[in-house]
């Protein structure tokens, strides 16, 4: 499965890096959407300036995916961006091509998050133990069932 992980990682990296850089290098090439719902949403994002931030983040995540570094944070950061990407593809501009694109986005995100799940389980702590001081507490969080 190792090769499959790397294939998904590199595919997602290329997609993010390509989509991100394309906006800055060829801004007129940016896909605006073929129906009013998707078109209006994309144009509003671009006009607000937020789209540039999203594309900048896509470039950064594309690089970290390519390098396979900071992967726990990268996989987590993919979630909110790809939520909107999937929404765009499945709700705002639904047709066969975008259903496939949205499905691939969901699969790649889910698979990458799954691969790094050991780093995310602590986030699901129901009650947890907060530290109300100024010490950084860098020591590893330990929880029941962890293998040594």
């Amino acid at each position, binding site marked *: 499965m190792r090769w499959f992980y790397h294939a998904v990682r590199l595919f997602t990296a290329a997609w993010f890096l390509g989509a991100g850089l394309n906006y800055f290098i060829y801004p007129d090439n940016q896909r605006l959407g073929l129906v009013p719902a998707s078109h209006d949403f994309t144009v509003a994002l671009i006009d607000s300036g*937020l789209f540039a931030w999203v594309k900048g983040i896509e470039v950064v995540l594309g690089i970290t995916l390519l390098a396979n570094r900071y992967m726990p944070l990268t996989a987590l950061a993919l979630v909110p961006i790809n939520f909107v990407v999937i929404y765009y593809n499945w709700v705002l501009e639904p047709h066969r091509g975008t259903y496939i694109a949205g499905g691939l986005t969901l699969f790649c995100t889910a698979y990458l998050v799954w691969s790094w799940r050991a780093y995310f389980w602590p986030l699901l702590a129901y009650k947890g133990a907060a530290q109300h001081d100024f010490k950084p507490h860098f020591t590893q969080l330990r929880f029941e069932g962890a293998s040594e």
Partner: protein
Amino acid sequence: MTDTTIPDALPGPTIKWIYHLSRLIFGGWWLYSGVMPFINPAWQPLGQEQPAIDFSLAMIASGLMLWVKVAEIVFGILILANRMMPLAAIAVVPINFVILYWNFVLDEGTVEYTFGALTIFFNAILLWPWRRYYWRLLTWKGKPDFSLQPGIQD
């Protein structure tokens, strides 16, 4: 010589009470903001300046605002209940990023700057006590798990 090192903690339960007060204010703010548009759709502030108004209307027209409001309700409840806090405190960061952008860039003004600053302040206060849960996310070269087992493995 006066000792100028940073103390490990403030006297008594000061930090704890700052955390709980911030949690109740922020959680209540989010729950209120999330619920009100369902009760009265006209309540949703669109902004005073045209870029903010256009962005808010686009979010509403796309239907994405609905999802944001549902998230505000869910995380508002979790934060008020002080449950699943490691997840709640970090999950609100992307939404707060957009809120910050809206307040600092799209709809400038004293009130907006204040709301933006408070957003940063409260999110930081909520994240800090749960920092032990987040340090592992900053792993430079970690180890992915290629198996199908759900358990934690080295």
